[in-house]
Protein backbone atom coordinates (compact mmCIF):
# COMPACT_ATOMS: atom_id res chain seq x y z
CA UNK A 1 0.00 0.00 0.00
CA UNK A 2 2.79 2.38 0.93
CA UNK A 3 4.46 1.65 -2.41
CA UNK A 4 1.32 2.68 -4.24
CA UNK A 5 1.01 5.97 -2.34
CA UNK A 6 4.67 6.64 -2.97
CA UNK A 7 4.21 5.96 -6.69
CA UNK A 8 1.14 8.21 -6.78
CA UNK A 9 2.91 11.19 -5.16
CA UNK A 10 6.01 10.64 -7.29
CA UNK A 11 4.10 10.62 -10.56
CA UNK A 12 2.18 13.79 -9.69
CA UNK A 13 4.97 15.99 -8.37
CA UNK A 14 8.41 14.61 -9.09
CA UNK A 15 8.00 12.86 -12.44
CA UNK A 16 5.48 15.45 -13.57
CA UNK A 17 4.62 14.84 -17.22
CA UNK A 18 5.03 18.50 -18.18
CA UNK A 19 7.76 19.86 -15.94
CA UNK A 20 10.06 16.85 -15.93
CA UNK A 21 9.42 15.27 -19.35
CA UNK A 22 7.69 18.00 -21.41
CA UNK A 23 5.02 15.59 -22.59
CA UNK A 24 1.76 16.92 -23.97
CA UNK A 25 3.25 20.37 -24.48
CA UNK A 26 1.36 21.04 -27.72
CA UNK A 27 -2.12 20.90 -26.22
CA UNK A 28 -0.73 22.42 -23.02
CA UNK A 29 0.27 25.53 -24.98
CA UNK A 30 -2.71 25.59 -27.32
CA UNK A 31 -5.59 25.03 -24.88
CA UNK A 32 -4.37 26.87 -21.77
CA UNK A 33 -6.03 30.22 -22.56
CA UNK A 34 -8.82 29.90 -19.97
CA UNK A 35 -9.10 27.85 -16.78
CA UNK A 36 -12.45 26.37 -17.74
CA UNK A 37 -11.40 24.76 -21.01
CA UNK A 38 -8.07 23.60 -19.61
CA UNK A 39 -9.92 21.91 -16.74
CA UNK A 40 -12.06 20.05 -19.31
CA UNK A 41 -9.03 18.90 -21.25
CA UNK A 42 -7.21 17.92 -18.06
CA UNK A 43 -10.07 15.73 -16.87
CA UNK A 44 -10.31 14.09 -20.29
CA UNK A 45 -6.58 13.32 -20.19
CA UNK A 46 -6.82 11.73 -16.71
CA UNK A 47 -9.77 9.67 -17.91
CA UNK A 48 -8.11 8.35 -21.07
CA UNK A 49 -4.81 7.70 -19.30
CA UNK A 50 -6.37 5.63 -16.52
CA UNK A 51 -8.04 3.45 -19.14
CA UNK A 52 -5.25 3.09 -21.72
CA UNK A 53 -2.20 2.55 -19.51
CA UNK A 54 -3.55 -0.59 -17.76
CA UNK A 55 -4.76 -2.00 -21.10
CA UNK A 56 -1.34 -1.41 -22.61
CA UNK A 57 0.22 -2.96 -19.50
CA UNK A 58 -1.77 -6.15 -20.06
CA UNK A 59 -0.92 -6.15 -23.77
CA UNK A 60 2.74 -5.66 -22.98
CA UNK A 61 2.81 -8.45 -20.40
CA UNK A 62 0.75 -11.05 -22.22
CA UNK A 63 1.60 -10.41 -25.86
CA UNK A 64 4.56 -8.17 -26.54
CA UNK A 65 7.36 -8.88 -24.07
CA UNK A 66 9.98 -11.50 -24.73
CA UNK A 67 8.51 -14.77 -23.53
CA UNK A 68 5.12 -13.19 -22.87
CA UNK A 69 3.38 -15.55 -25.26
CA UNK A 70 4.37 -18.58 -23.18
CA UNK A 71 0.82 -18.77 -21.82
CA UNK A 72 -0.38 -20.07 -25.22
CA UNK A 73 2.14 -22.88 -25.43
CA UNK A 74 5.79 -23.28 -24.43
CA UNK A 75 6.89 -23.10 -28.08
CA UNK A 76 6.23 -19.37 -28.11
CA UNK A 77 8.46 -18.69 -25.10
CA UNK A 78 11.25 -17.29 -27.26
CA UNK A 79 9.08 -14.91 -29.32
CA UNK A 80 9.82 -11.21 -28.77
CA UNK A 81 7.27 -8.86 -30.29
CA UNK A 82 8.31 -5.73 -28.43
CA UNK A 83 9.15 -3.92 -31.68
CA UNK A 84 5.40 -3.84 -32.34
CA UNK A 85 4.67 -1.93 -29.16
CA UNK A 86 4.50 1.55 -30.75
CA UNK A 87 1.92 0.58 -33.33
CA UNK A 88 -0.15 -1.47 -30.86
CA UNK A 89 -0.11 1.20 -28.16
CA UNK A 90 -1.13 4.01 -30.48
CA UNK A 91 -3.88 1.82 -31.94
CA UNK A 92 -5.20 1.19 -28.42
CA UNK A 93 -5.08 4.90 -27.57
CA UNK A 94 -6.80 5.95 -30.79
CA UNK A 95 -9.54 3.34 -30.51
CA UNK A 96 -10.19 3.99 -26.80
CA UNK A 97 -10.52 7.69 -27.55
CA UNK A 98 -12.98 6.93 -30.36
CA UNK A 99 -14.93 4.51 -28.14
CA UNK A 100 -15.00 6.93 -25.24
CA UNK A 101 -16.29 9.68 -27.49
CA UNK A 102 -19.22 7.50 -28.59
CA UNK A 103 -20.04 6.31 -25.06
CA UNK A 104 -19.87 9.78 -23.55
CA UNK A 105 -21.98 11.21 -26.36
CA UNK A 106 -24.66 8.54 -25.85
CA UNK A 107 -24.94 8.51 -22.06
CA UNK A 108 -23.85 11.90 -20.74
CA UNK A 109 -24.47 14.57 -23.36
CA UNK A 110 -23.64 17.33 -20.87
CA UNK A 111 -20.16 15.94 -20.30
CA UNK A 112 -19.83 15.45 -24.05
CA UNK A 113 -20.58 19.10 -24.64
CA UNK A 114 -18.02 20.09 -22.04
CA UNK A 115 -15.27 17.81 -23.37
CA UNK A 116 -16.52 17.77 -26.96
CA UNK A 117 -13.70 19.05 -29.11
CA UNK A 118 -10.95 17.90 -26.74
CA UNK A 119 -11.60 14.19 -26.90
CA UNK A 120 -10.38 13.63 -30.47
CA UNK A 121 -7.36 15.86 -29.74
CA UNK A 122 -6.26 13.51 -27.00
CA UNK A 123 -5.42 10.69 -29.42
CA UNK A 124 -2.34 12.62 -30.46
CA UNK A 125 -1.44 13.97 -27.02
CA UNK A 126 2.07 12.72 -26.32
CA UNK A 127 1.42 12.51 -22.57
CA UNK A 128 -0.95 9.57 -23.13
CA UNK A 129 1.38 7.55 -25.35
CA UNK A 130 4.30 8.68 -23.18
CA UNK A 131 2.69 7.26 -20.04
CA UNK A 132 2.31 3.89 -21.77
CA UNK A 133 5.91 3.93 -22.98
CA UNK A 134 7.28 4.91 -19.55
CA UNK A 135 5.12 2.17 -18.02
CA UNK A 136 6.95 -0.34 -20.23
CA UNK A 137 10.28 0.60 -18.68
CA UNK A 138 9.15 0.62 -15.07
CA UNK A 139 8.63 -3.14 -14.66
CA UNK A 140 5.38 -2.98 -12.69
CA UNK A 141 4.48 -6.16 -10.85
CA UNK A 142 0.67 -6.07 -10.66
CA UNK A 143 -2.20 -4.35 -12.45
CA UNK A 144 -2.71 -1.95 -9.51
CA UNK A 145 0.55 -0.12 -10.11
CA UNK A 146 -0.10 0.99 -13.70
CA UNK A 147 -3.57 2.24 -12.65
CA UNK A 148 -2.10 4.34 -9.84
CA UNK A 149 0.74 5.52 -12.07
CA UNK A 150 -1.68 6.61 -14.80
CA UNK A 151 -3.92 8.39 -12.30
CA UNK A 152 -0.97 10.24 -10.79
CA UNK A 153 0.51 11.26 -14.14
CA UNK A 154 -2.88 12.44 -15.36
CA UNK A 155 -3.49 14.51 -12.24
CA UNK A 156 -0.01 15.99 -12.53
CA UNK A 157 -0.76 17.04 -16.09
CA UNK A 158 -4.12 18.48 -15.03
CA UNK A 159 -2.46 20.44 -12.24
CA UNK A 160 0.09 21.90 -14.64
CA UNK A 161 -2.37 22.97 -17.33
CA UNK A 162 -4.83 24.52 -14.85
CA UNK A 163 -1.95 26.37 -13.19
CA UNK A 164 -0.62 27.84 -16.42
CA UNK A 165 -4.14 28.75 -17.56
CA UNK A 166 -4.75 30.69 -14.34
CA UNK A 167 -1.45 32.56 -14.79
CA UNK A 168 -2.18 33.31 -18.44
CA UNK A 169 -5.58 34.75 -17.54
CA UNK A 170 -3.86 37.19 -15.20
CA UNK A 171 -0.88 37.98 -17.38
CA UNK A 172 -3.12 39.35 -20.10
CA UNK A 173 -3.31 42.53 -18.02
CA UNK A 174 0.43 42.90 -17.52
CA UNK A 175 2.85 44.77 -19.68
CA UNK A 176 4.85 42.11 -21.54
CA UNK A 177 7.30 43.14 -24.33
CA UNK A 178 5.56 42.65 -27.70
CA UNK A 179 7.88 39.92 -29.09
CA UNK A 180 7.51 37.90 -25.89
CA UNK A 181 3.72 38.13 -25.78
CA UNK A 182 1.77 34.90 -26.02
CA UNK A 183 4.07 31.98 -26.74
CA UNK A 184 7.38 33.36 -25.46
CA UNK A 185 6.22 34.37 -22.02
CA UNK A 186 4.28 31.11 -21.63
CA UNK A 187 7.50 29.18 -22.18
CA UNK A 188 9.38 31.22 -19.61
CA UNK A 189 6.58 30.90 -17.04
CA UNK A 190 6.49 27.15 -17.59
CA UNK A 191 10.24 27.08 -16.97
CA UNK A 192 9.79 28.97 -13.70
CA UNK A 193 6.96 26.63 -12.66
CA UNK A 194 9.26 23.73 -13.47
CA UNK A 195 11.90 25.17 -11.14
CA UNK A 196 9.26 25.41 -8.42
CA UNK A 197 8.27 21.79 -9.00
CA UNK A 198 11.92 20.75 -8.72
CA UNK A 199 11.77 21.54 -5.04
CA UNK A 200 9.81 18.30 -4.67
CA UNK A 201 12.88 16.33 -5.83
CA UNK A 202 14.15 13.94 -3.23
CA UNK A 203 10.86 13.58 -1.37
CA UNK A 204 10.45 10.01 -0.19
CA UNK A 205 7.46 8.63 1.64
Amino acid sequence: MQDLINLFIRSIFIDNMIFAFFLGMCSYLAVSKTVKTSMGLGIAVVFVMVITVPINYLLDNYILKEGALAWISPEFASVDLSFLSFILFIAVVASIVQLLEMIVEKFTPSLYNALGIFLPLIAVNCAILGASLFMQGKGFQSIGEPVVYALGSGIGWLLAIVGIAAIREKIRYSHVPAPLKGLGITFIITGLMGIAFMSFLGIKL
Partner: protein
Amino acid sequence: MSAKNLKLIKNPLSKENPITVQVLGICSALAVTAQIKPALVMAISVTVVVAVSNLIISLMRNTIPPRIRIIVQLLVVAMMVILVDQFLKAFVYDVSKQLSVFVGLIITNCIVMGRLEAFAMQNKPWESFLDGIGNGLGYGLILFIVAFFRELFGSGTLLGYQIIPESWYAANGGFYYNNGFFILPPMALIIVGIVIWVHRSRNKDLCEN
Protein backbone atom coordinates in the same frame (compact mmCIF):
# COMPACT_ATOMS: atom_id res chain seq x y z
CA MET B 1 14.80 23.28 -58.44
CA SER B 2 12.15 25.93 -59.00
CA ALA B 3 11.78 29.00 -56.78
CA LYS B 4 8.49 27.67 -55.39
CA ASN B 5 10.06 24.40 -54.28
CA LEU B 6 13.03 26.18 -52.76
CA LYS B 7 10.60 28.22 -50.70
CA LEU B 8 9.09 25.01 -49.30
CA ILE B 9 12.47 24.22 -47.79
CA LYS B 10 13.52 27.73 -46.80
CA ASN B 11 10.32 29.04 -45.21
CA PRO B 12 10.16 26.57 -42.30
CA LEU B 13 13.69 27.57 -41.28
CA SER B 14 12.57 31.00 -40.12
CA LYS B 15 9.22 32.58 -41.02
CA GLU B 16 7.21 29.38 -40.64
CA ASN B 17 9.41 27.58 -38.16
CA PRO B 18 7.54 24.56 -36.79
CA ILE B 19 8.62 25.19 -33.19
CA THR B 20 8.73 28.95 -32.71
CA VAL B 21 5.92 29.97 -35.07
CA GLN B 22 3.62 27.01 -35.70
CA VAL B 23 4.08 25.70 -32.10
CA LEU B 24 4.37 22.06 -33.20
CA GLY B 25 6.49 19.30 -31.73
CA ILE B 26 7.60 21.04 -28.57
CA CYS B 27 7.69 17.97 -26.33
CA SER B 28 10.61 16.17 -27.86
CA ALA B 29 12.36 19.43 -28.76
CA LEU B 30 12.94 20.16 -25.09
CA ALA B 31 13.59 16.74 -23.67
CA VAL B 32 16.48 15.66 -25.90
CA THR B 33 18.52 18.88 -25.92
CA ALA B 34 20.80 18.48 -22.90
CA GLN B 35 23.56 17.55 -25.38
CA ILE B 36 24.10 18.16 -29.08
CA LYS B 37 24.54 14.57 -30.21
CA PRO B 38 21.11 13.20 -29.18
CA ALA B 39 19.54 16.43 -30.43
CA LEU B 40 21.06 15.94 -33.89
CA VAL B 41 20.07 12.28 -34.03
CA MET B 42 16.53 13.25 -33.01
CA ALA B 43 16.42 16.01 -35.64
CA ILE B 44 17.51 13.61 -38.38
CA SER B 45 14.99 10.97 -37.25
CA VAL B 46 12.13 13.48 -37.26
CA THR B 47 13.16 14.81 -40.69
CA VAL B 48 13.17 11.30 -42.15
CA VAL B 49 9.81 10.43 -40.58
CA VAL B 50 8.11 13.68 -41.67
CA ALA B 51 9.49 13.59 -45.20
CA VAL B 52 8.71 9.94 -45.92
CA SER B 53 5.28 9.90 -44.28
CA ASN B 54 4.41 13.12 -46.11
CA LEU B 55 5.39 11.37 -49.34
CA ILE B 56 3.38 8.22 -48.58
CA ILE B 57 0.26 10.07 -47.43
CA SER B 58 0.46 12.39 -50.41
CA LEU B 59 0.57 9.40 -52.76
CA MET B 60 -2.52 7.96 -51.07
CA ARG B 61 -4.34 11.26 -50.50
CA ASN B 62 -7.07 10.67 -53.08
CA THR B 63 -7.93 7.18 -51.85
CA ILE B 64 -8.11 7.80 -48.08
CA PRO B 65 -11.71 8.15 -46.86
CA PRO B 66 -11.86 11.41 -44.85
CA ARG B 67 -13.58 9.81 -41.85
CA ILE B 68 -10.74 7.44 -41.02
CA ARG B 69 -7.82 9.57 -42.20
CA ILE B 70 -6.39 10.11 -38.69
CA ILE B 71 -6.04 6.35 -38.13
CA VAL B 72 -4.47 5.86 -41.57
CA GLN B 73 -2.01 8.68 -40.90
CA LEU B 74 -1.15 7.30 -37.46
CA LEU B 75 -0.46 3.86 -38.91
CA VAL B 76 1.83 5.21 -41.63
CA VAL B 77 3.70 7.34 -39.09
CA ALA B 78 3.93 4.49 -36.57
CA MET B 79 5.40 2.23 -39.25
CA MET B 80 8.05 4.81 -40.13
CA VAL B 81 8.89 5.35 -36.47
CA ILE B 82 9.33 1.62 -35.88
CA LEU B 83 11.77 1.51 -38.82
CA VAL B 84 13.72 4.50 -37.47
CA ASP B 85 13.75 3.07 -33.95
CA GLN B 86 15.06 -0.32 -35.11
CA PHE B 87 17.68 1.46 -37.22
CA LEU B 88 18.89 3.56 -34.28
CA LYS B 89 19.00 0.51 -32.00
CA ALA B 90 21.12 -1.32 -34.55
CA PHE B 91 23.63 1.42 -35.42
CA VAL B 92 23.81 4.00 -32.60
CA TYR B 93 22.69 2.02 -29.58
CA ASP B 94 24.01 4.45 -26.93
CA VAL B 95 22.15 7.42 -28.41
CA SER B 96 19.02 5.28 -28.79
CA LYS B 97 19.23 4.49 -25.05
CA GLN B 98 19.63 8.20 -24.27
CA LEU B 99 16.60 9.16 -26.35
CA SER B 100 14.58 6.38 -24.64
CA VAL B 101 10.86 6.88 -25.16
CA PHE B 102 11.24 10.03 -27.22
CA VAL B 103 11.86 8.11 -30.44
CA GLY B 104 8.51 6.37 -29.93
CA LEU B 105 6.92 9.70 -29.21
CA ILE B 106 7.71 10.93 -32.73
CA ILE B 107 4.41 9.17 -33.56
CA THR B 108 2.47 11.74 -31.59
CA ASN B 109 4.86 14.57 -32.49
CA CYS B 110 2.55 17.29 -33.68
CA ILE B 111 4.92 18.29 -36.50
CA VAL B 112 4.30 15.00 -38.26
CA MET B 113 0.50 14.98 -37.87
CA GLY B 114 0.32 18.73 -38.46
CA ARG B 115 2.18 18.62 -41.77
CA LEU B 116 0.25 15.56 -42.93
CA GLU B 117 -3.07 17.28 -42.25
CA ALA B 118 -2.09 20.73 -43.43
CA PHE B 119 0.09 19.94 -46.42
CA ALA B 120 0.34 16.35 -47.61
CA MET B 121 -3.43 15.83 -47.84
CA GLN B 122 -3.72 18.61 -50.45
CA ASN B 123 -0.43 18.59 -52.35
CA LYS B 124 1.54 16.49 -54.82
CA PRO B 125 4.12 13.94 -53.59
CA TRP B 126 7.32 15.81 -54.53
CA GLU B 127 6.18 19.08 -52.93
CA SER B 128 5.05 17.19 -49.83
CA PHE B 129 8.41 15.47 -49.57
CA LEU B 130 10.23 18.82 -49.76
CA ASP B 131 7.83 20.33 -47.20
CA GLY B 132 8.68 17.45 -44.86
CA ILE B 133 12.42 18.00 -45.33
CA GLY B 134 12.01 21.75 -44.74
CA ASN B 135 10.01 21.33 -41.57
CA GLY B 136 12.38 18.68 -40.26
CA LEU B 137 15.30 21.06 -40.83
CA GLY B 138 13.47 23.95 -39.15
CA TYR B 139 12.84 21.72 -36.17
CA GLY B 140 16.46 20.57 -36.18
CA LEU B 141 17.72 24.16 -36.27
CA ILE B 142 15.94 25.09 -33.03
CA LEU B 143 17.02 21.81 -31.42
CA PHE B 144 20.62 22.58 -32.35
CA ILE B 145 20.49 26.13 -30.96
CA VAL B 146 19.00 24.99 -27.65
CA ALA B 147 21.37 22.03 -27.33
CA PHE B 148 24.38 24.22 -28.21
CA PHE B 149 23.80 26.56 -25.25
CA ARG B 150 22.79 23.80 -22.86
CA GLU B 151 25.85 21.67 -23.58
CA LEU B 152 28.30 24.60 -23.70
CA PHE B 153 27.24 26.15 -20.40
CA GLY B 154 26.05 22.97 -18.70
CA SER B 155 29.01 20.68 -19.37
CA GLY B 156 31.61 22.94 -21.00
CA THR B 157 31.72 20.69 -24.07
CA LEU B 158 30.40 20.70 -27.63
CA LEU B 159 29.61 17.35 -29.26
CA GLY B 160 31.61 15.78 -26.43
CA TYR B 161 34.79 17.84 -27.07
CA GLN B 162 36.02 20.03 -24.20
CA ILE B 163 35.62 23.72 -25.14
CA ILE B 164 36.15 25.51 -21.83
CA PRO B 165 39.89 25.04 -21.03
CA GLU B 166 40.48 22.51 -18.25
CA SER B 167 42.73 24.96 -16.39
CA TRP B 168 39.85 27.40 -15.92
CA TYR B 169 37.95 25.01 -13.67
CA ALA B 170 37.95 25.64 -9.94
CA ALA B 171 39.02 22.02 -9.38
CA ASN B 172 42.29 22.83 -11.23
CA GLY B 173 42.86 26.11 -9.42
CA GLY B 174 40.85 28.30 -11.80
CA PHE B 175 37.66 30.33 -11.34
CA TYR B 176 35.10 28.56 -13.54
CA TYR B 177 32.20 26.30 -12.61
CA ASN B 178 29.84 24.52 -14.99
CA ASN B 179 26.34 25.89 -14.63
CA GLY B 180 24.50 22.72 -13.63
CA PHE B 181 21.22 24.51 -14.03
CA PHE B 182 21.50 24.31 -17.83
CA ILE B 183 21.30 20.53 -17.71
CA LEU B 184 17.99 20.61 -15.84
CA PRO B 185 14.66 20.52 -17.74
CA PRO B 186 13.33 24.02 -16.86
CA MET B 187 16.28 25.74 -18.55
CA ALA B 188 15.28 24.23 -21.90
CA LEU B 189 11.94 26.00 -21.67
CA ILE B 190 13.55 29.29 -20.78
CA ILE B 191 16.06 29.04 -23.67
CA VAL B 192 13.25 28.33 -26.15
CA GLY B 193 11.39 31.32 -24.70
CA ILE B 194 14.44 33.51 -25.32
CA VAL B 195 14.91 32.11 -28.85
CA ILE B 196 11.28 33.05 -29.58
CA TRP B 197 11.90 36.50 -28.14
CA VAL B 198 14.94 37.13 -30.36
CA HIS B 199 13.25 35.66 -33.42
CA ARG B 200 10.10 37.75 -33.03
CA SER B 201 11.88 40.99 -32.30
CA ARG B 202 13.72 40.53 -35.61
CA ASN B 203 10.47 39.66 -37.43
CA LYS B 204 7.96 42.13 -36.05
CA ASP B 205 5.09 40.73 -38.11
CA LEU B 206 5.17 37.47 -36.09
CA CYS B 207 4.30 39.18 -32.78
CA GLU B 208 1.00 38.23 -31.13
CA ASN B 209 -1.50 40.83 -29.95
